[in-house]
């Protein structure tokens, strides 16, 4: 349906009603004004008037539908905050994991860097190297084979250090999704 101006819509609507056998002859200027000044209402209807001979009716009865007086609670932010508080522990761990995976220059920490190997480590791996250098997975175990294939090491702290950025990212994504779902459920009364 093409977009029409209010005056055009009134003219067209009146014509269609009259062509269908109704007699509707409103004052188009007065009707347009009534519609224009009804923007604060939820709706407005112009009805053929039985008292069309009286000048103040302008050939129609104008009915305005008032806006329902219902306060729409803005619960989204409250729900989000409640859900965030519920997940605070997880969020804190995500922050910790993110911090623990920040790359640190090995040379600055006093380590030697071989040709072709990474110049960076992280705080978890550094702590492991310093205090638990030989804490390893059992060499022949399947866990060790998996760790070796995935992270290139079977040192426990080396594995944790390598995995931590992925853990942090995963937790951060999980946090956002989980908080969003929780807020959605709360919004819908579940």
């Amino acid at each position, binding site marked *: 349906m093409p977009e029409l101006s209010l005056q055009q819509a009134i003219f067209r609507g009146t014509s269609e009603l009259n062509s269908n056998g109704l007699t509707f002859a409103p004052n188009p200027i007065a009707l347009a004004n009534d519609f224009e000044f009804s923007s604060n209402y939820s709706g407005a209807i112009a009805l053929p008037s039985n008292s069309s001979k009286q000048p103040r009716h302008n050939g129609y009865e104008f009915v305005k539908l008032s806006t329902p007086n219902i306060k729409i609670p803005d619960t989204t932010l409250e729900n989000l905050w409640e859900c965030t508080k519920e997940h605070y522990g997880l969020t804190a761990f995500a922050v910790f994991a993110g911090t623990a995976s920040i790359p640190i220059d*090995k040379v600055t920490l006093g*380590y*030697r860097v071989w040709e*072709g190997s990474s110049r960076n480590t992280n705080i978890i791996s550094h702590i492991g190297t310093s205090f638990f250098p030989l804490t390893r997975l059992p060499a022949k175990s399947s866990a*060790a084979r998996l760790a070796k294939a995935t992270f290139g090491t079977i040192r426990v702290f080396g594995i944790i250090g390598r995995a931590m950025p992925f853990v942090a990212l995963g937790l951060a994504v999980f946090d956002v999704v989980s908080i969003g779902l929780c807020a959605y459920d709360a919004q819908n009364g579940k």
Partner: protein
Amino acid sequence: MMRKMENKLSKDEVIAAITDILVGVVGWIEKDKVLPTAHCVLDLHINGDDLSMVAMQVEKHFRIESTQDEWSHIGTVEQVADLVLKNLPQSR
């Protein structure tokens, strides 16, 4: 080993000692896979942090001091042995 170090260590002995350190630190690699000319990162795929620990253990074992610039050009056990022999005090 220390008594031998007081004399002159052969390159083969140094290589054998470094290989033992490497195998001990890395934990998952077989000794016979560690060829002197195999690149520890590119060929053996050893983790960089493990190699840093190997470097520390090598310096401690042979009581040598080395710089990062020297380690920047080292990728094989043989090159580590050369570094050790270069940095061993002449009196040993």
